């Protein structure tokens, strides 16, 4: 198991970028929802919405940095620690009710993200094809 973990390890720098990316994304989503409220665009919180949109768009620079290093089909799921952050934030800050089944769905999604993170990520390394043995993987540079 140790060997597998080592081979698949993401570069630490990219991991930090992903965490920051998630936090900015969560903040943007929260502010946009807070600003939109129940859908009435003329409400007084429209400034909060624009700040949220600003966070959402400024994430682009960070995202291009991440995409230039790792595969899209790996980067997208890994950018989803916000799936844990957002329902938590929705409960605490927006006082939404999160159903028990929804927490179970959330758990399955997190498990799926974990499996995808086991897959090779670097754009530069050769890819293992479907069904081949793990030992044949090429380690990260």
């Amino acid at each position: 198991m140790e060997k597998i973990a080592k081979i698949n390890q993401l570069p630490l720098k990219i991991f930090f970028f992903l965490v920051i990316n998630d936090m900015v994304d969560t903040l943007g989503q929260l502010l946009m929802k807070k600003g939109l409220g129940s859908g009435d665009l003329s409400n007084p919180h429209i400034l909060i919405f624009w700040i949220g949109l600003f966070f959402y768009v400024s994430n682009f620079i960070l995202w291009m940095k991440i995409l230039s290093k790792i595969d899209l089909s790996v980067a997208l799921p890994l950018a989803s620690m916000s799936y844990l952050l957002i329902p938590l934030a929705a409960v605490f800050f927006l006082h939404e009710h999160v159903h028990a089944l929804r927490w179970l769905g959330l758990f399955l999604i997190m498990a799926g993200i974990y499996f995808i993170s086991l897959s090779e990520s670097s754009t530069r390394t050769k890819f293992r094809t479907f069904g081949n043995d793990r030992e044949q993987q090429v380690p990260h540079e």
Partner: protein
Amino acid sequence: MNKALILVLLAEFWIIVGQICFKKGANRLNTEDAAGKPWIFQLLGCLLRFPSLWIGSVAMLLGLLFWLSALACGELSYVYLLGSIQYIFALFAAYFFLHEKITTPKLIGTLLITLGIILTAVS
């Protein structure tokens, strides 16, 4: 089929089109890495020269508009979890348009995420 679900599907379609374009741009950014300039200037230079980044931005904007409409008509924790359908879109889109391989852990992960989405949608 509720309104939020349809809006999320439309949003995710355009977001994936945008992401594919961004990734194509990022790959070209990689090949010109030797320039030695600070990365932010490389990105700005590429923004001007690569049409894929412009097309991607327009697609992302379209996706964002649909996404905002979806956010406005459902709870955030519900709409956002429905949005995870993008990984299934991404897996196949990356396979067909970017030639990224579909590996066993990727496939297991995507199936688990699908299950999670279904559980979320019925709750």
